[in-house]
């Protein structure tokens, strides 16, 4: 196949599906409700917590009826709505460097503009919970601390430790880590009680944990549906909607209901032989994140080649470890939460830095042709070692990979012609590999 021209339109005739669009509609409603809750909390003077997708601590915060704002999501939304640059430049004018995370700047820009966001009004946080899963979370929290003098609780979860490290239940290190995390759960509960004036309710906590167990089980099932050929959903374009809801509604029955809807719709696609990308030819795995300021164009560069993202590591690390199979023991809720947090963090963060084994497994299980490593300037957390990982996988596992760079939210770093050249060349090489494989 020759290199496609930009987003060629192909006429695709699909069988009519009764559940078509149900996931998208429910997604829209839930996101609208989430915003409405944030806005009404502010109007009514109820405290709002700012948290992050990797380690949101929703399990605890729900107990206090604190609406949780996810600034990563709201920054992403500024980009998808084509407004991120205006906020980023506002932050840069205030002294923030062009070389720091664009999510931070988009958010700072919104706050500096009085909280006006394209989708609503961003409330001031009364509490910030920042895990160490991204170090920028902590710096970001410190910015709000300066702006609003709100408490910033750094929830520290000791992560992957390096060569040969394995999380071993029962090992001294595991016990030390769990004890430290468990102590912090108690600290966060005490702080939340102070901020909200409400008492922690252990039975309600159990309900939330049980809901997260359910969410995790469903999430794994949904991800596994994409092992099917053709993949029923695109982990890039539809994945982002799934991630938004599983974060914003973690621990709420609405989150589990949403995944049931998605699962039913994707199963219907499978039953009717409908793939997310018509006439799927290439199955891809995304490592890193997408470029949200140019999201349609980014996706188009792969869809033009009938390439579908069957999976992404984003759906792993940005899901607060839901994909790793969280099973909280409701009989010893706090201790179990501490254990699960250590286990899942070490696996998920290990997967981000030391990802070669997990990626190899995904390539096999999801039947992936090639990996797209997308380094984004904003995010050293996901991007720093990607060229090395790509090279290692090619050399040691013969898995082809493409390394490209742009940004999450800063359209100034988007260079479509350059990206297209590299992406086209990558698909051509995948085609040659396929042809060579067929000849053998």
């Amino acid at each position, binding site marked *: 196949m020759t290199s496609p021209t930009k987003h060629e339109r192909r006429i695709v005739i699909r069988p009519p599906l009764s559940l078509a669009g149900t996931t998208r509609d429910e997604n829209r409603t839930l996101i609208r409700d989430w915003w409405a809750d944030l806005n009404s909390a502010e109007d009514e003077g109820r405290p709002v917590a700012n948290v992050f997708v990797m380690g949101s601590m929703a399990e605890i915060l729900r107990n206090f009826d604190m609406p949780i704002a996810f600034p990563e999501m709201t920054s992403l939304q500024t980009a998808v709505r084509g407004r991120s640059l205006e906020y980023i430049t506002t932050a840069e004018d*205030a*002294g*923030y*460097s062009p*070389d*720091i*995370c664009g999510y*931070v700047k988009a958010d700072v820009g919104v706050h500096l503009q009085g909280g006006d966001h394209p989708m609503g009004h961003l409330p001031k946080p009364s509490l910030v919970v920042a895990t*160490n899963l*991204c*170090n*920028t979370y*902590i*710096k*970001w*929290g*410190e*910015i709000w601390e*300066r702006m609003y003098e709100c*408490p*910033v*609780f*750094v*929830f*520290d979860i*000791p*992560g*992957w*430790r*390096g*060569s*040969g*490290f394995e999380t071993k239940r029962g090992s*001294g*290190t595991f016990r*030390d*880590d769990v*004890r*430290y995390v468990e*102590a*912090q759960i108690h*600290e966060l509960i005490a702080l939340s009680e102070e901020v909200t004036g409400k008492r922690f309710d252990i039975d309600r906590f159990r309900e939330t944990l049980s809901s997260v167990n359910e969410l995790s089980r469903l999430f794994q099932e949904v991800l596994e549906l994409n092992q099917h050929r053709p993949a029923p959903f695109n982990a890039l374009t539809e994945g982002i909607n799934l991630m938004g809801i599983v974060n914003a509604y973690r621990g709420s029955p609405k989150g589990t209901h949403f995944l049931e809807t998605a699962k039913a719709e994707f199963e219907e696609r499978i039953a009717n032989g409908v793939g997310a990308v018509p006439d799927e030819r290439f199955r891809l795995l995304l490592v890193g994140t997408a470029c949200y300021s140019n999201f349609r164009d980014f996706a188009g560069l792969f869809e033009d080649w009938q390439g579908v993202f069957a999976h992404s590591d984003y759906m792993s690390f940005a899901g607060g470890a839901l994909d790793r199979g969280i099973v909280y023991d409701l009989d010893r809720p706090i201790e179990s939460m501490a254990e699960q947090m250590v286990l899942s963090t070490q696996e998920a963060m290990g997967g981000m*830095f*030391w990802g*070669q084994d997990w990626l190899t497994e995904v390539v096999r299980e999801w039947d992936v042709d090639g990996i797209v490593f997308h*380094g984004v*300037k904003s995010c*050293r*957390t996901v*991007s*720093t*070692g*990607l*060229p*090395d*990982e790509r*090279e*290692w996988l090619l050399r040691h596992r013969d898995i082809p990979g493409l390394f490209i*760079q742009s940004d999450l939210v800063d359209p100034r770093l988007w260079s479509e012609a350059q990206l297209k050249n590299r992406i086209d060349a990558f698909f051509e090489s995948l085609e040659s590999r396929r042809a060579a494989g067929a000849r053998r």
Partner: protein
Amino acid sequence: MILTDRTVSLTTGSIMTAETVESIVDETRTIIEDPSYPMARRWLEEHPGGKVLGHFQVYFPEELAHAAGVLPIKVAGFDTALPIRKADAHLAAFVCSIARSALELVMSGTFDLLDMFVFPPICDVARHSCAVWARNFEDVDCQIIYLPHNAASPAAVPYLTGEYRRILREIEEVASTRVSDEALRRSIEVFNENRRLLRELYRIKRETPWNLSAVEAYILTRAAGVMDRERHNDILRRALAAIEQRDAKPQDRIKVVFSGGFCEQPPLDLISVLQDACYIVDDDFMVGLRWILEDVAADGDPLEALADAYLNRSDYSPVQHDPRKPKEDMLLRKIEAAGAEAAIIAAAKMCEPGLEEQVGYSQRLYDKGIPHLVMEFEEKSNTFEQTRMEVETFAESLLFEFA
């Protein structure tokens, strides 16, 4: 590098009466600027079969390595002395220079002595780097020492004590030895002595900066990371004795505090340009070497004493969040304690935590009416004319204002 006679005499540790600060500093400079780590090589000649543990900025409890008879080496990056040829292909484009030069050091074979390497979780570049190293250098035990980010938690000391124990076990394995509490206490003493001497060096810098230039203090401090600590203690003792003989006249220069040298280091020539225009009376260059502000207790459980010192008797930096140490307040205190009139608020290029901190510092200084110059640097830069102009204009305008 060819060791000169003078270097040899310098490193024997014997106090030479005719020594000048200049001679000690010159010889020390040769050592710190050589990316092949000549003093580590010498140490290995003196300790056949010895092991070397490298560690990345900012802080590592070097006592753990020392007590196991392992040489701890601080990898603080390199300027143009180490051209980057191989490392770039392994890291994304928008990563700071120190991560590249540290990787290059080993990939290029310039520093081929490492048996173990430890990264602290200061930032995501450092954490990723550990994985990159572990993938590429299979013979080196690459570890992340998870220093607590929730520094004020009552659970942090017991947790960190356990983490130190874990790292100690790794070191013991690498060195095929067992480390006793007694050995740890002896090492703590050696490092306490080192910290005392460094505090003395910084006291001189604060109180009589005309007797010790910023470049000299920097070279003498940084040398701690590239040789065994007993030898460094000797150098510091000799340098302090020589500084005592100095009686320079104060010049009409403003006193500033430099902030932003906690991880990647500005090139020496840049520090030199800055000191031409002002007295740098305090700074955070190589802050990890001076992180612990008091002697570490030599009785009780030594690992717990080290953990407690790291968390509760320590300095501040952009890569540690501790509500007990609000960073702008800490900076203001530092400026006041040093009697400085102004500050240079720097950050390494592409350094996320440093660049973010810069804004907070700058805003507070602005609110307080404290003059300050905001700048970026890179360990690899080699032209400083623009900076010279900026800092001269800044210093002159202040001299005029304070006159």
